């Protein structure tokens, strides 16, 4: 399930919904990303997440489909917020459920690595009177590259 939204999300409710009434799902791996005051305590006043409406949902749905295709998962959840957020607030929730923990953990790490490099979001940080766009990180590219397979290569090159 994919949700791209401005409002906050309830982690407990979202994760519980993934396995409600189920007795065949043993593992729920999840990740919460928070706005981090990288400039030091009190330095970052806000971070605004801009995104590309339409393409975001499309990329996230493809990401969900790839994870479900690649691991023996029951469900995938990606919630990504946009808009102006304060330090400490929630940005993203990824989760993967499975019978076994290995698939859930791997899929969840995969979702985050790909979100960092494939989801059309951009971050504007406000530090004091200055606002600057956060640059993409090479180590995020490297992290995403470890999931590359022939199939995902092909998919990436599709028009």
């Amino acid at each position, binding site marked *: 399930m994919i949700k791209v939204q401005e409002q906050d999300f309830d982690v407990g409710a979202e994760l519980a919904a993934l396995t409600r009434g189920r007795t065949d799902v043993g593992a729920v791996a999840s990740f919460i990303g928070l706005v981090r005051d990288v400039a030091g305590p009190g330095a970052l006043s806000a971070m605004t997440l801009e995104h*590309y409406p339409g393409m975001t949902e499309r990329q996230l749905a493809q990401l969900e489909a790839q994870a479900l295709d690649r691991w023996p998962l029951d469900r995938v959840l990606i919630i990504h917020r946009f808009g102006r957020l304060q330090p400490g607030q929630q940005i993203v929730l990824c989760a993967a459920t499975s019978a076994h923990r290995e698939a859930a953990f791997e899929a969840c790490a995969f979702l985050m690595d790909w979100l960092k490099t494939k989801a*059309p979001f951009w971050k504007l940080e406000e530090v004091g009177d200055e606002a600057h766009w956060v640059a993409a990180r090479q180590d995020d590219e490297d992290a995403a590259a470890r999931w590359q397979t022939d199939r995902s290569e092909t998919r990436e090159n599709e028009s």
Partner: protein
Amino acid sequence: MKLLYFSWIRDRIGMGEETVQPPDDVATVGQLVAWLARQSGGHAEAFADPAIVCCAVNQEFAKMEEAVGANDEVAFFPPVTGG
């Protein structure tokens, strides 16, 4: 052709969206970038280094060789920073 700009690409061009009619010899993303760079000082600044500009055609990532046509939605943006 509908164009969308995001992040500092939009800031430099000064608008988030425009509709353009490039000449017939603009058939790929790379040719469109070269043509757009000549349209204004802001465009020139935004596309000064095409190597750091990403493109999506109809909401899918596209390389510079990719074909573009009059009915496409083409977006330009810096490398993404989601998650």
